[in-house]
Protein backbone atom coordinates (compact mmCIF):
# COMPACT_ATOMS: atom_id res chain seq x y z
CA UNK A 1 0.00 0.00 0.00
CA UNK A 2 3.01 2.21 0.32
CA UNK A 3 4.21 3.72 -2.92
CA UNK A 4 6.77 6.08 -4.26
CA UNK A 5 9.95 7.48 -2.79
CA UNK A 6 10.54 7.11 0.88
CA UNK A 7 8.31 4.07 0.97
CA UNK A 8 10.59 2.35 3.41
CA UNK A 9 10.53 5.26 5.79
CA UNK A 10 6.77 5.55 5.54
CA UNK A 11 6.41 1.84 6.13
CA UNK A 12 8.63 2.10 9.17
CA UNK A 13 6.54 4.93 10.58
CA UNK A 14 3.27 3.19 9.91
CA UNK A 15 4.56 -0.02 11.46
CA UNK A 16 5.63 2.01 14.49
CA UNK A 17 2.16 3.49 14.67
CA UNK A 18 0.72 0.00 14.44
CA UNK A 19 3.01 -1.04 17.27
CA UNK A 20 1.77 1.83 19.40
CA UNK A 21 -1.87 1.06 18.77
CA UNK A 22 -1.36 -2.63 19.44
CA UNK A 23 0.52 -1.67 22.60
CA UNK A 24 -2.53 0.33 23.63
CA UNK A 25 -4.71 -2.76 23.29
CA UNK A 26 -2.20 -4.90 25.16
CA UNK A 27 -2.07 -2.34 27.92
CA UNK A 28 -5.85 -2.37 28.22
CA UNK A 29 -5.81 -6.14 28.44
CA UNK A 30 -2.90 -6.38 30.85
CA UNK A 31 -3.69 -3.58 33.29
CA UNK A 32 -6.25 -5.59 35.25
CA UNK A 33 -3.92 -8.56 35.39
CA UNK A 34 -1.16 -6.37 36.74
CA UNK A 35 -3.43 -4.73 39.30
CA UNK A 36 -4.49 -8.07 40.71
CA UNK A 37 -0.96 -9.33 40.86
CA UNK A 38 0.29 -6.16 42.50
CA UNK A 39 -2.02 -6.42 45.48
CA UNK A 40 -2.51 -10.12 45.93
CA UNK A 41 0.48 -11.74 44.27
CA UNK A 42 -2.10 -13.83 42.44
CA UNK A 43 -1.19 -14.92 38.95
CA UNK A 44 -4.69 -15.05 37.55
CA UNK A 45 -4.44 -17.48 34.66
CA UNK A 46 -8.18 -17.04 34.08
CA UNK A 47 -7.58 -13.45 33.00
CA UNK A 48 -7.87 -14.34 29.32
CA UNK A 49 -11.14 -16.14 29.97
CA UNK A 50 -12.50 -13.07 31.75
CA UNK A 51 -11.48 -10.95 28.79
CA UNK A 52 -13.18 -13.29 26.34
CA UNK A 53 -16.30 -13.40 28.48
CA UNK A 54 -16.43 -9.62 28.45
CA UNK A 55 -16.01 -9.65 24.68
CA UNK A 56 -18.85 -12.11 24.13
CA UNK A 57 -21.22 -10.35 26.49
CA UNK A 58 -20.30 -7.04 24.88
CA UNK A 59 -21.03 -8.49 21.46
CA UNK A 60 -24.40 -9.83 22.54
CA UNK A 61 -25.38 -6.51 24.11
CA UNK A 62 -24.27 -4.44 21.12
CA UNK A 63 -26.08 -6.87 18.86
CA UNK A 64 -29.36 -6.42 20.75
CA UNK A 65 -29.21 -2.79 21.82
CA UNK A 66 -27.02 -1.29 19.11
CA UNK A 67 -25.19 0.77 21.70
CA UNK A 68 -21.46 0.26 21.65
CA UNK A 69 -20.84 2.09 24.91
CA UNK A 70 -23.43 -0.04 26.65
CA UNK A 71 -21.71 -3.10 25.22
CA UNK A 72 -18.34 -2.08 26.61
CA UNK A 73 -19.88 -1.34 29.98
CA UNK A 74 -21.83 -4.58 30.24
CA UNK A 75 -18.87 -6.63 28.99
CA UNK A 76 -16.80 -5.04 31.73
CA UNK A 77 -19.46 -5.61 34.38
CA UNK A 78 -19.98 -9.25 33.39
CA UNK A 79 -16.27 -9.95 33.70
CA UNK A 80 -16.10 -7.98 36.95
CA UNK A 81 -18.88 -10.10 38.37
CA UNK A 82 -17.21 -13.31 37.19
CA UNK A 83 -13.89 -12.13 38.62
CA UNK A 84 -15.46 -11.43 41.99
CA UNK A 85 -16.97 -14.91 42.02
CA UNK A 86 -13.64 -16.48 41.12
CA UNK A 87 -11.89 -14.67 43.97
CA UNK A 88 -14.64 -15.07 46.55
CA UNK A 89 -15.47 -18.64 45.62
CA UNK A 90 -12.09 -20.19 44.91
CA UNK A 91 -8.89 -18.17 44.93
CA UNK A 92 -9.65 -16.30 48.15
CA UNK A 93 -9.50 -19.56 50.06
CA UNK A 94 -5.95 -20.14 48.92
CA UNK A 95 -4.57 -16.68 49.62
CA UNK A 96 -0.84 -16.81 50.11
CA UNK A 97 -0.43 -20.09 48.25
CA UNK A 98 0.56 -18.68 44.88
CA UNK A 99 1.15 -21.95 43.12
CA UNK A 100 -2.19 -23.35 44.16
CA UNK A 101 -3.92 -20.19 42.98
CA UNK A 102 -2.14 -20.40 39.66
CA UNK A 103 -3.30 -23.97 39.19
CA UNK A 104 -6.84 -23.28 40.33
CA UNK A 105 -7.09 -20.36 37.93
CA UNK A 106 -5.87 -22.59 35.09
CA UNK A 107 -8.67 -25.01 35.93
CA UNK A 108 -11.17 -22.15 36.00
CA UNK A 109 -10.00 -20.89 32.64
CA UNK A 110 -10.39 -24.37 31.11
CA UNK A 111 -13.94 -24.57 32.42
CA UNK A 112 -14.84 -21.03 31.38
CA UNK A 113 -13.45 -21.51 27.87
CA UNK A 114 -15.46 -24.67 27.40
CA UNK A 115 -18.69 -23.15 28.70
CA UNK A 116 -18.27 -20.09 26.51
CA UNK A 117 -17.70 -22.32 23.50
CA UNK A 118 -20.89 -24.11 24.42
CA UNK A 119 -22.93 -20.92 24.68
CA UNK A 120 -21.47 -18.74 21.94
CA UNK A 121 -20.20 -21.47 19.65
CA UNK A 122 -16.99 -21.40 17.68
CA UNK A 123 -17.81 -18.49 15.38
CA UNK A 124 -15.63 -15.46 15.07
CA UNK A 125 -17.33 -12.38 16.43
CA UNK A 126 -16.69 -8.77 15.62
CA UNK A 127 -18.45 -6.08 17.56
CA UNK A 128 -19.99 -3.50 15.28
CA UNK A 129 -18.42 -0.12 15.84
CA UNK A 130 -20.36 3.09 16.32
CA UNK A 131 -20.35 5.46 13.35
CA UNK A 132 -17.58 7.65 14.73
CA UNK A 133 -15.15 4.79 15.21
CA UNK A 134 -15.80 2.71 12.14
CA UNK A 135 -13.98 3.17 8.88
CA UNK A 136 -10.71 4.93 8.47
CA UNK A 137 -9.15 8.21 7.50
CA UNK A 138 -6.17 9.38 5.53
CA UNK A 139 -3.30 10.11 7.88
CA UNK A 140 -1.64 13.48 7.47
CA UNK A 141 2.05 13.40 6.45
CA UNK A 142 2.07 9.64 5.88
CA UNK A 143 -0.76 9.88 3.39
CA UNK A 144 -2.15 6.40 3.98
CA UNK A 145 -5.48 5.25 5.24
CA UNK A 146 -5.71 4.32 8.90
CA UNK A 147 -8.47 2.72 10.94
CA UNK A 148 -10.26 5.07 13.32
CA UNK A 149 -10.66 2.35 15.90
CA UNK A 150 -6.90 1.89 16.10
CA UNK A 151 -6.40 5.57 16.72
CA UNK A 152 -9.18 5.41 19.30
CA UNK A 153 -7.36 2.53 20.99
CA UNK A 154 -4.62 4.91 22.02
CA UNK A 155 -7.18 7.26 23.48
CA UNK A 156 -8.84 4.41 25.39
CA UNK A 157 -5.50 3.27 26.74
CA UNK A 158 -4.60 6.78 27.78
CA UNK A 159 -7.96 7.32 29.46
CA UNK A 160 -7.79 3.95 31.19
CA UNK A 161 -4.24 4.58 32.31
CA UNK A 162 -5.15 7.98 33.69
CA UNK A 163 -8.27 6.65 35.37
CA UNK A 164 -6.29 3.87 36.97
CA UNK A 165 -3.65 6.32 38.07
CA UNK A 166 -6.29 8.57 39.54
CA UNK A 167 -8.01 5.69 41.28
CA UNK A 168 -4.83 4.37 42.80
CA UNK A 169 -3.09 7.62 43.61
CA UNK A 170 -5.95 9.94 44.39
CA UNK A 171 -8.81 8.02 45.98
CA UNK A 172 -9.30 6.45 49.37
CA UNK A 173 -9.79 3.02 47.82
CA UNK A 174 -6.56 3.49 45.92
CA UNK A 175 -4.74 4.38 49.10
CA UNK A 176 -6.11 1.25 50.77
CA UNK A 177 -4.94 -0.85 47.82
CA UNK A 178 -1.48 0.69 47.97
CA UNK A 179 -1.36 0.09 51.69
CA UNK A 180 -2.31 -3.52 51.05
CA UNK A 181 0.54 -3.87 48.57
CA UNK A 182 2.95 -2.46 51.17
CA UNK A 183 1.85 -4.37 54.25
CA UNK A 184 -1.22 -6.58 54.34
CA UNK A 185 -0.92 -7.52 58.00
CA UNK A 186 -0.82 -3.92 59.12
CA UNK A 187 -3.80 -3.07 56.96
CA UNK A 188 -5.77 -5.83 58.61
CA UNK A 189 -4.66 -4.69 62.05
CA UNK A 190 -6.20 -1.33 61.19
CA UNK A 191 -9.56 -2.99 60.71
CA UNK A 192 -9.67 -3.44 56.94
CA UNK A 193 -11.33 -6.69 55.83
CA UNK A 194 -8.65 -7.67 53.38
CA UNK A 195 -10.71 -10.47 51.84
CA UNK A 196 -13.41 -8.06 50.74
CA UNK A 197 -10.79 -5.69 49.37
CA UNK A 198 -9.32 -8.58 47.41
CA UNK A 199 -12.70 -9.39 45.94
CA UNK A 200 -13.19 -5.77 45.02
CA UNK A 201 -9.80 -5.55 43.35
CA UNK A 202 -10.44 -8.80 41.53
CA UNK A 203 -13.70 -7.36 40.28
CA UNK A 204 -11.86 -4.24 39.19
CA UNK A 205 -9.30 -6.35 37.35
CA UNK A 206 -12.18 -8.24 35.75
CA UNK A 207 -13.85 -4.98 34.76
CA UNK A 208 -10.71 -3.85 32.97
CA UNK A 209 -10.32 -7.25 31.30
CA UNK A 210 -13.95 -7.34 30.22
CA UNK A 211 -13.88 -3.88 28.72
CA UNK A 212 -10.63 -4.73 26.98
CA UNK A 213 -12.38 -7.81 25.61
CA UNK A 214 -15.16 -5.76 24.02
CA UNK A 215 -12.63 -3.30 22.63
CA UNK A 216 -10.52 -6.16 21.27
CA UNK A 217 -13.63 -7.64 19.71
CA UNK A 218 -14.24 -4.27 18.05
CA UNK A 219 -10.72 -3.56 16.86
CA UNK A 220 -9.84 -7.13 15.92
CA UNK A 221 -12.17 -10.02 16.63
CA UNK A 222 -12.79 -12.67 19.23
CA UNK A 223 -13.17 -16.40 18.89
CA UNK A 224 -12.33 -19.44 20.97
CA UNK A 225 -8.58 -19.23 21.55
CA UNK A 226 -8.59 -15.46 21.93
CA UNK A 227 -8.52 -16.04 25.68
CA UNK A 228 -5.18 -17.81 25.51
CA UNK A 229 -3.69 -15.25 23.14
CA UNK A 230 -4.52 -12.39 25.44
CA UNK A 231 -3.51 -14.33 28.53
CA UNK A 232 -0.10 -14.94 26.99
CA UNK A 233 0.28 -11.37 25.79
CA UNK A 234 -0.79 -10.04 29.20
CA UNK A 235 1.68 -12.33 30.90
CA UNK A 236 4.50 -11.16 28.70
CA UNK A 237 3.52 -7.52 29.10
CA UNK A 238 3.41 -7.49 32.87
CA UNK A 239 6.40 -9.74 33.25
CA UNK A 240 8.56 -7.64 30.99
CA UNK A 241 7.29 -4.41 32.55
CA UNK A 242 7.35 -5.61 36.11
CA UNK A 243 4.51 -7.37 37.86
CA UNK A 244 2.10 -5.19 39.75
CA UNK A 245 3.21 -1.87 38.31
CA UNK A 246 0.76 -0.01 36.08
CA UNK A 247 3.63 1.98 34.60
CA UNK A 248 5.44 -1.28 34.02
CA UNK A 249 2.42 -2.66 32.21
CA UNK A 250 2.48 0.38 29.93
CA UNK A 251 6.18 -0.02 29.23
CA UNK A 252 5.84 -3.76 28.72
CA UNK A 253 2.90 -3.26 26.36
CA UNK A 254 4.91 -0.76 24.37
CA UNK A 255 7.86 -3.11 23.99
CA UNK A 256 5.74 -6.10 23.10
CA UNK A 257 3.45 -4.20 20.73
CA UNK A 258 6.36 -2.70 18.83
CA UNK A 259 8.31 -5.95 18.75
CA UNK A 260 5.32 -7.79 17.39
CA UNK A 261 4.64 -5.28 14.62
CA UNK A 262 8.26 -4.90 13.56
CA UNK A 263 8.48 -8.67 13.61
CA UNK A 264 5.37 -9.03 11.49
CA UNK A 265 6.51 -6.45 8.97
CA UNK A 266 10.18 -7.28 8.68
CA UNK A 267 10.50 -10.90 9.79
CA UNK A 268 7.02 -12.39 9.80
CA UNK A 269 8.31 -15.89 10.19
CA UNK A 270 9.76 -15.43 13.63
CA UNK A 271 7.61 -12.53 14.85
CA UNK A 272 6.03 -14.45 17.70
CA UNK A 273 9.35 -15.87 18.77
CA UNK A 274 10.71 -12.32 19.22
CA UNK A 275 8.06 -11.43 21.74
CA UNK A 276 8.85 -14.35 23.97
CA UNK A 277 12.57 -13.99 23.44
CA UNK A 278 12.30 -10.44 24.79
CA UNK A 279 10.60 -11.85 27.85
CA UNK A 280 13.25 -14.51 28.38
CA UNK A 281 16.04 -11.96 28.08
CA UNK A 282 14.41 -9.47 30.44
CA UNK A 283 13.69 -12.13 33.02
CA UNK A 284 17.14 -13.65 32.82
CA UNK A 285 18.75 -10.27 33.42
CA UNK A 286 16.15 -8.64 35.64
CA UNK A 287 13.87 -11.28 37.13
CA UNK A 288 11.46 -8.76 38.63
CA UNK A 289 10.85 -7.06 35.25
CA UNK A 290 11.94 -3.64 34.02
CA UNK A 291 9.99 -1.55 36.53
CA UNK A 292 9.23 -4.24 39.08
CA UNK A 293 10.22 -4.09 42.69
CA UNK A 294 12.61 -6.79 43.78
CA UNK A 295 11.01 -9.41 45.99
CA UNK A 296 11.69 -9.01 49.67
Amino acid at each position, binding site marked *: MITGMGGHMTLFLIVTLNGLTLAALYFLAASGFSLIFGLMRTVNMAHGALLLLGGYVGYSVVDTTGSWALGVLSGGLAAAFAGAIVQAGVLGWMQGDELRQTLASIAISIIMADLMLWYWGGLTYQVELPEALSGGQRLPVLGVGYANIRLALMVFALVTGLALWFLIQRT*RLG*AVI*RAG*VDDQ*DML*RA*LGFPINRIFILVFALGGLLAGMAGVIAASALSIAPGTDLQFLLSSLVVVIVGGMGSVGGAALGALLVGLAEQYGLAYAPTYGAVFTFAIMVVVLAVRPQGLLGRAEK
Partner: protein
Amino acid sequence: MATDALLRIDGLDLHYGSSHVLHGVNLQIGDRPLGILGRNGMGKTSLCRTIMGLHPNSAGRILFEGSDISGLPPERRAQAGLGYVPQGRRIFRSLSVEEHLRIVARKGGNWSIDRVYETFPRLKERRRNLGDRLSGGEQQMLAIGRALLLNPRLLVLDEPTEGLAPAIVSDVVDLIGKITTEGIAVLLIEQNLHAALAAVDDVAIMVGGEVVETMTADALDNDQAMQKRHLGLEPGQAGKGE
Protein backbone atom coordinates in the same frame (compact mmCIF):
# COMPACT_ATOMS: atom_id res chain seq x y z
CA MET B 1 -6.60 -4.25 89.12
CA ALA B 2 -10.15 -4.49 87.96
CA THR B 3 -11.75 -7.89 88.14
CA ASP B 4 -13.87 -7.13 85.10
CA ALA B 5 -10.89 -6.90 82.84
CA LEU B 6 -11.18 -5.22 79.44
CA LEU B 7 -8.69 -7.67 78.00
CA ARG B 8 -8.08 -10.97 79.66
CA ILE B 9 -5.52 -13.48 78.46
CA ASP B 10 -5.70 -17.04 79.77
CA GLY B 11 -2.99 -19.64 79.28
CA LEU B 12 -1.89 -18.31 75.91
CA ASP B 13 0.54 -20.50 73.97
CA LEU B 14 2.22 -19.65 70.68
CA HIS B 15 4.36 -21.84 68.49
CA TYR B 16 6.30 -20.25 65.71
CA GLY B 17 8.10 -22.59 63.40
CA SER B 18 10.20 -24.82 65.58
CA SER B 19 10.17 -22.58 68.60
CA HIS B 20 7.65 -22.45 71.38
CA VAL B 21 7.45 -18.70 71.88
CA LEU B 22 4.73 -18.13 74.48
CA HIS B 23 4.21 -20.47 77.39
CA GLY B 24 0.84 -20.12 79.05
CA VAL B 25 0.73 -16.35 79.33
CA ASN B 26 -1.89 -14.94 81.72
CA LEU B 27 -2.66 -11.23 81.78
CA GLN B 28 -5.47 -8.85 82.62
CA ILE B 29 -5.80 -5.27 81.52
CA GLY B 30 -8.39 -2.98 82.97
CA ASP B 31 -8.51 0.80 83.02
CA ARG B 32 -5.03 1.20 84.42
CA PRO B 33 -2.34 1.25 81.75
CA LEU B 34 -0.20 -1.85 81.84
CA GLY B 35 3.42 -2.08 80.77
CA ILE B 36 5.11 -5.29 79.74
CA LEU B 37 8.82 -5.31 80.32
CA GLY B 38 11.52 -7.78 79.53
CA ARG B 39 14.71 -8.23 77.67
CA ASN B 40 14.96 -8.82 73.97
CA GLY B 41 13.67 -12.11 72.66
CA MET B 42 11.44 -12.82 75.65
CA GLY B 43 8.25 -12.95 73.58
CA LYS B 44 6.84 -9.46 74.11
CA THR B 45 6.33 -8.64 70.44
CA SER B 46 4.95 -12.10 69.75
CA LEU B 47 2.42 -11.50 72.52
CA CYS B 48 1.29 -8.28 70.82
CA ARG B 49 0.97 -9.93 67.48
CA THR B 50 -0.99 -12.79 68.98
CA ILE B 51 -3.35 -10.36 70.71
CA MET B 52 -3.92 -8.69 67.35
CA GLY B 53 -4.50 -12.00 65.61
CA LEU B 54 -1.44 -11.79 63.38
CA HIS B 55 -0.20 -15.06 64.84
CA PRO B 56 -2.70 -17.80 65.61
CA ASN B 57 -2.36 -18.92 69.22
CA SER B 58 -1.96 -22.64 69.72
CA ALA B 59 -3.69 -22.74 73.12
CA GLY B 60 -5.45 -20.44 75.53
CA ARG B 61 -8.03 -17.70 75.19
CA ILE B 62 -8.09 -13.98 74.61
CA LEU B 63 -11.19 -12.31 76.03
CA PHE B 64 -11.93 -8.76 74.99
CA GLU B 65 -14.85 -7.05 76.73
CA GLY B 66 -15.93 -10.46 77.85
CA SER B 67 -16.03 -12.24 74.50
CA ASP B 68 -13.46 -14.64 73.13
CA ILE B 69 -11.71 -13.03 70.18
CA SER B 70 -8.98 -15.60 69.67
CA GLY B 71 -10.67 -17.02 66.59
CA LEU B 72 -11.25 -13.67 64.93
CA PRO B 73 -9.16 -12.31 62.07
CA PRO B 74 -7.11 -9.17 62.79
CA GLU B 75 -9.55 -6.82 61.08
CA ARG B 76 -12.41 -7.95 63.31
CA ARG B 77 -10.29 -7.38 66.39
CA ALA B 78 -9.42 -3.90 65.20
CA GLN B 79 -13.09 -3.20 64.56
CA ALA B 80 -13.90 -4.52 68.01
CA GLY B 81 -11.74 -1.79 69.52
CA LEU B 82 -8.14 -2.94 69.56
CA GLY B 83 -5.71 -0.29 68.32
CA TYR B 84 -2.22 -1.41 67.36
CA VAL B 85 1.03 0.50 67.16
CA PRO B 86 3.45 -2.16 66.00
CA GLN B 87 7.12 -2.53 66.60
CA GLY B 88 9.04 -0.81 63.82
CA ARG B 89 5.90 1.33 63.20
CA ARG B 90 5.13 -0.39 59.90
CA ILE B 91 4.26 2.76 58.07
CA PHE B 92 2.98 2.16 54.51
CA ARG B 93 5.82 3.32 52.35
CA SER B 94 3.75 4.40 49.40
CA LEU B 95 1.10 6.35 51.32
CA SER B 96 1.44 9.97 52.33
CA VAL B 97 0.88 11.05 55.91
CA GLU B 98 -2.50 12.44 54.99
CA GLU B 99 -3.49 9.21 53.26
CA HIS B 100 -2.51 7.15 56.27
CA LEU B 101 -4.94 9.13 58.33
CA ARG B 102 -7.62 9.38 55.70
CA ILE B 103 -7.99 5.66 55.14
CA VAL B 104 -8.68 4.97 58.82
CA ALA B 105 -10.60 8.14 59.74
CA ARG B 106 -14.31 7.64 60.52
CA LYS B 107 -17.05 10.14 61.24
CA GLY B 108 -17.80 10.52 64.93
CA GLY B 109 -15.62 9.38 67.79
CA ASN B 110 -13.12 11.37 69.75
CA TRP B 111 -10.30 11.40 67.28
CA SER B 112 -10.37 13.17 63.94
CA ILE B 113 -7.64 13.93 61.46
CA ASP B 114 -7.59 17.52 62.66
CA ARG B 115 -7.13 16.43 66.21
CA VAL B 116 -4.23 14.17 65.22
CA TYR B 117 -2.66 17.15 63.49
CA GLU B 118 -3.26 19.27 66.60
CA THR B 119 -1.60 16.63 68.72
CA PHE B 120 1.30 16.19 66.31
CA PRO B 121 1.83 19.50 64.50
CA ARG B 122 4.88 17.98 62.86
CA LEU B 123 2.67 15.55 60.97
CA LYS B 124 0.63 18.40 59.58
CA GLU B 125 3.78 19.98 58.19
CA ARG B 126 4.68 16.72 56.52
CA ARG B 127 1.19 15.71 55.42
CA ARG B 128 2.20 15.38 51.76
CA ASN B 129 5.26 13.28 52.45
CA LEU B 130 5.32 9.57 51.69
CA GLY B 131 5.67 7.17 54.59
CA ASP B 132 9.21 6.14 53.80
CA ARG B 133 10.37 9.77 53.79
CA LEU B 134 9.61 10.34 57.47
CA SER B 135 12.06 10.28 60.35
CA GLY B 136 11.71 7.66 63.06
CA GLY B 137 9.96 10.05 65.40
CA GLU B 138 7.54 11.22 62.75
CA GLN B 139 6.78 7.65 61.81
CA GLN B 140 6.04 6.88 65.43
CA MET B 141 3.66 9.82 65.70
CA LEU B 142 1.96 8.70 62.55
CA ALA B 143 1.65 5.13 63.77
CA ILE B 144 0.06 6.32 67.00
CA GLY B 145 -2.16 8.84 65.25
CA ARG B 146 -3.31 6.20 62.80
CA ALA B 147 -4.23 3.83 65.61
CA LEU B 148 -6.04 6.55 67.56
CA LEU B 149 -8.25 7.39 64.59
CA LEU B 150 -9.84 3.98 65.04
CA ASN B 151 -11.06 5.29 68.41
CA PRO B 152 -9.93 2.11 70.12
CA ARG B 153 -10.96 0.86 73.55
CA LEU B 154 -7.49 -0.56 74.06
CA LEU B 155 -4.28 0.66 72.47
CA VAL B 156 -1.46 -1.85 72.12
CA LEU B 157 1.88 -0.08 71.73
CA ASP B 158 4.91 -2.20 70.92
CA GLU B 159 8.16 -0.42 71.85
CA PRO B 160 7.04 3.02 70.75
CA THR B 161 10.23 4.64 72.09
CA GLU B 162 12.62 2.34 70.26
CA GLY B 163 15.28 4.34 68.49
CA LEU B 164 13.79 7.73 69.38
CA ALA B 165 15.65 10.76 70.65
CA PRO B 166 15.15 11.37 74.40
CA ALA B 167 13.02 14.48 73.85
CA ILE B 168 10.62 12.56 71.66
CA VAL B 169 10.56 9.68 74.11
CA SER B 170 9.18 12.02 76.71
CA ASP B 171 6.58 13.32 74.24
CA VAL B 172 5.43 9.78 73.69
CA VAL B 173 5.23 9.16 77.41
CA ASP B 174 3.17 12.28 77.89
CA LEU B 175 0.88 11.27 75.08
CA ILE B 176 0.27 7.88 76.64
CA GLY B 177 -0.74 9.66 79.80
CA LYS B 178 -3.15 11.82 77.84
CA ILE B 179 -4.64 8.82 76.08
CA THR B 180 -5.26 7.14 79.39
CA THR B 181 -7.24 10.08 80.69
CA GLU B 182 -9.58 9.74 77.72
CA GLY B 183 -10.64 6.33 78.84
CA ILE B 184 -8.53 4.41 76.35
CA ALA B 185 -6.82 1.46 77.99
CA VAL B 186 -3.14 1.05 77.20
CA LEU B 187 -0.93 -1.98 76.85
CA LEU B 188 2.65 -0.79 76.49
CA ILE B 189 5.54 -3.03 75.55
CA GLU B 190 8.84 -1.45 76.48
CA GLN B 191 12.52 -2.09 76.90
CA ASN B 192 13.12 1.41 78.18
CA LEU B 193 12.40 0.90 81.86
CA HIS B 194 12.23 4.55 82.75
CA ALA B 195 9.90 5.43 79.93
CA ALA B 196 7.67 2.54 80.87
CA LEU B 197 7.59 3.37 84.54
CA ALA B 198 6.67 6.93 83.74
CA ALA B 199 3.85 5.97 81.44
CA VAL B 200 2.03 3.09 83.12
CA ASP B 201 0.62 2.18 86.49
CA ASP B 202 1.12 -1.55 86.46
CA VAL B 203 3.85 -3.68 84.97
CA ALA B 204 4.27 -7.31 83.98
CA ILE B 205 7.68 -8.81 83.36
CA MET B 206 8.19 -11.41 80.67
CA VAL B 207 11.02 -13.88 80.65
CA GLY B 208 11.33 -16.73 78.19
CA GLY B 209 7.77 -16.44 76.91
CA GLU B 210 6.17 -16.34 80.34
CA VAL B 211 4.89 -13.58 82.57
CA VAL B 212 7.00 -14.04 85.68
CA GLU B 213 6.06 -10.97 87.71
CA THR B 214 3.13 -8.58 87.89
CA MET B 215 3.34 -5.53 90.12
CA THR B 216 2.71 -1.82 90.25
CA ALA B 217 5.10 0.50 88.46
CA ASP B 218 6.08 2.09 91.77
CA ALA B 219 6.95 -1.26 93.29
CA LEU B 220 9.28 -2.07 90.41
CA ASP B 221 10.75 1.40 90.50
CA ASN B 222 11.78 0.75 94.07
CA ASP B 223 13.03 -2.79 93.57
CA GLN B 224 16.54 -2.49 92.16
CA ALA B 225 17.18 -6.20 92.57
CA MET B 226 14.19 -7.08 90.46
CA GLN B 227 15.22 -4.59 87.79
CA LYS B 228 18.69 -6.07 87.64
CA ARG B 229 17.54 -9.65 87.64
CA HIS B 230 15.06 -9.43 84.80
CA LEU B 231 16.00 -6.34 82.88
CA GLY B 232 19.53 -5.33 83.68
CA LEU B 233 22.93 -6.87 83.55
CA GLU B 234 22.95 -9.12 86.58
CA PRO B 235 23.36 -12.76 85.58
CA GLY B 236 20.31 -14.27 87.16
CA GLN B 237 18.34 -17.46 87.23
CA ALA B 238 16.35 -16.61 84.17
CA GLY B 239 12.82 -17.90 84.34
CA LYS B 240 13.06 -19.20 87.87
CA GLY B 241 11.39 -16.19 89.55
CA GLU B 242 12.16 -15.39 93.19
